[in-house]
């Protein structure tokens, strides 16, 4: 049939690149009968009105259908700050809030990794131990053995990645449930950490090494914090405008200008308030800056790269992802490597915070706090929905509770109970919103 030319074929479809696919021939040639019979836009479609009024209406519709997003956690944060601020004025002081912004970095970094694993609908219970293990690797190499600090830093991060590789292989290739693999890892990596730390048990950091300085460096110049806020706002505005422009030129729906202005204004208020507060005390902490960079970069990876798209696809429908040709094993292994590497990063910040790696590093309620931070921030436990920003919001909530209770002089006992209750509340909200979304056809 191909050689006698009895069937008209313009060219070989399999040779065509997807970019060239939407030509007017082939499958995409107009369907004359149906195209004339049906309007392009479905009349049932709820079209968002332009401007602020339309935005508010859309917002209310989203709430009604259970798309809560970050709203519960923002409300919770406001309530927590209002309560502790009214109990003791030092809570809302620039000093306390500045310290808070540094204290949340360790937990928050680990929580970013947890967000990735939760997006798959899985769980990593080893992140606490891994953070302690990697801090111990750095401290022992750098302090005890005098290895170059950069080499030690790299070794700690690679160590984290290898842990993720091992756990990911057992999960993705052998098929052991992630829950079990990482629970076993939780114990095993803790044991390895104790082994590395040796008989002494505690290794104090020198205070001049790169990890210590990551935490203690604070940019005191007024321009540092304001400059960062300005840069963030300008970049956001530029990206939003450029996106809208590209979409307008391509003839697809785009965000109206009023919407972009509103979003930018909200971001600007938050950013400059934060910068102002930081400048009231010592200035912009390097730890916070690095935390924000990690969030923005990994957010970009999740939302704008095909790798990120594949993670979401796996969290939505594994069978669908497999049939789309996605390498399931590779995505799973790499996500566990990201989680463990982020645990290593977080562990280094936590070690810097107390200037040592000790036998208790990565223990206690760290694991619970990190998972809680990711979930409280709005990442679903059921997979397929979440953002890296939830690590920041969740870590802020947990950090605020701890800080507020410390100021009030409440014991650990009360802190644990309150943090547990907040975590439960977050999961309840997640479950309820998921149910509402199902009813509204959104999940």
């Amino acid at each position, binding site marked *: *049939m*191909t*050689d*006698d030319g*009895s*069937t*008209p*074929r313009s060219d070989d*479809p*399999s040779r065509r690149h*997807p*970019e060239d*696919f*939407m030509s007017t021939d*082939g*499958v*995409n*040639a*107009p*369907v004359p*009968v*149906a*195209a004339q*019979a*049906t309007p392009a836009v*479905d009349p049932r*479609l*709820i079209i968002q009105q332009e401007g602020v009024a339309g935005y508010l209406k859309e917002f209310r519709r989203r709430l009604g259908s259970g798309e809560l997003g970050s709203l519960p956690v923002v409300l919770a944060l406001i309530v927590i700050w209002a309560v502790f601020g009214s109990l003791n004025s030092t809570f809302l002081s620039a000093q306390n809030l500045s310290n808070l912004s540094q204290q949340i970095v360790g937990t928050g970094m680990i929580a970013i990794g947890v967000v990735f694993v939760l997006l798959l609908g899985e769980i990593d219970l080893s992140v606490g131990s891994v953070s302690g293990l990697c801090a111990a690797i750095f401290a022992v190499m750098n302090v005890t053995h005098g290895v170059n600090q950069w080499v030690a830093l790299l070794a700690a991060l690679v160590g984290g990645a290898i842990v993720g590789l091992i756990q990911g292989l057992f999960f993705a290739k052998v098929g052991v449930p992630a829950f079990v693999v990482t629970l076993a890892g939780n114990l095993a990596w803790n044991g390895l950490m104790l082994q590395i730390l040796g008989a002494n048990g505690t290794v104090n950091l020198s205070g001049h090494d790169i990890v210590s300085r990551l935490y203690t460096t604070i940019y005191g110049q007024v321009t540092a914090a304001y400059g960062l806020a300005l840069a963030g706002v300008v970049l956001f505005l530029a990206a939003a405008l450029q*996106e809208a422009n*590209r*979409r307008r030129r*391509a*003839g*697809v*729906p785009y965000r109206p200008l009023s919407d972009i202005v509103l979003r930018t204004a909200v971001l600007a208020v938050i950013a400059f308030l934060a910068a102002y507060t930081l400048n009231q005390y010592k200035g912009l902490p390097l730890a916070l800056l690095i935390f924000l960079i990690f969030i923005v970069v990994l957010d970009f990876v999740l939302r*704008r*790269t*095909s790798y990120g*798209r*594949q993670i*979401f*696809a796996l*969290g*939505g*429908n594994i*069978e*669908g*992802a*497999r*049939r*789309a*040709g*996605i390498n399931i094993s590779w995505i799973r292994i790499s996500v566990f490597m990201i989680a463990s590497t982020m645990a290593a990063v977080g562990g280094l910040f936590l070690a810097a915070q107390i200037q040592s790696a000790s036998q208790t590093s990565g223990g206690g309620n760290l694991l619970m706090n990190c998972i809680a931070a990711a979930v409280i921030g709005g990442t679903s436990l059921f997979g*397929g*929905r979440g953002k890296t920003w939830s690590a920041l919001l969740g870590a802020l909530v947990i950090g605020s509770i701890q800080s507020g209770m410390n100021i009030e002089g409440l014991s650990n006992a009360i802190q644990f109970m309150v943090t547990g209750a907040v975590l439960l509340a977050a999961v309840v909200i997640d479950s309820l919103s998921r149910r509402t*979304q*199902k009813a509204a*056809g*959104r*999940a």
Partner: protein
Amino acid sequence: MIGEPVLALRGISKRFGAVQALTDIELEVHQGEVVALVGDNGAGKSTLVKSIAGVNQPDEGVIEWEGKPVTIHRPQDAQQLGIATVYQDLALCDNLDVVGNLFLGREIKRFGVLNEVAMEKRSRTLLNTLSIRIPSVRIPIASLSGGQRQTVAIARSLVGSPKVVILDEPTAALGVEQTAQVLDLVERLREQGLGVILISHNMADVMAVADRIAVLRLGRNNGVFDRRSTSQEEIISAITGATDNAVTRRKARGTEGTE
């Protein structure tokens, strides 16, 4: 059908434990031809489709693609050859929007970053030319009706420019208007020179669009009929086994003996 088939199955057999699911199956699909695959429940239609799509591997037999024997180990192998499959369970990701699903696994990128604008534009063009009505290409699949999901799944199979499209019960969950649209779409694919394997229980659909009708019964070929010279009754009796007679046997041999 004269000419070389684009896809040919030669003596495919598949066992699951003690069950002989497929025995010595022969099937040919030419360019620009709609082959309906019919059979009762458990006749082996799904198993056969999975063998072609790379989900299962046949125990015996050869799959020929454009005259050359090929092995299809994974779904990706089938996709790379140019075989697109729309499964009955659709396998769409509920949490991704229509654009995300259409281009899943073959995203358009610009400087290594997803080019959402280009993908959205192409999704709209694709859906419009197929006259598929979706409220918006930016709403999650979860918000769509069953029929809308089916049309999205079929549209998705076309994104990779395949040569053979396998549709597993594409009209089973659809209303009258949407069934008509899917059948229009099937004819459209044939006009463009694609081979279509259409699995259906609906004889009206099969008689409306198929060129040839291959009947499976208990995991074996039970006749290949030319649509123009057969009747619905004849096919139904082949499906149910009421006429396993010499005429259908000889007809089956006749159509398969011309390559």
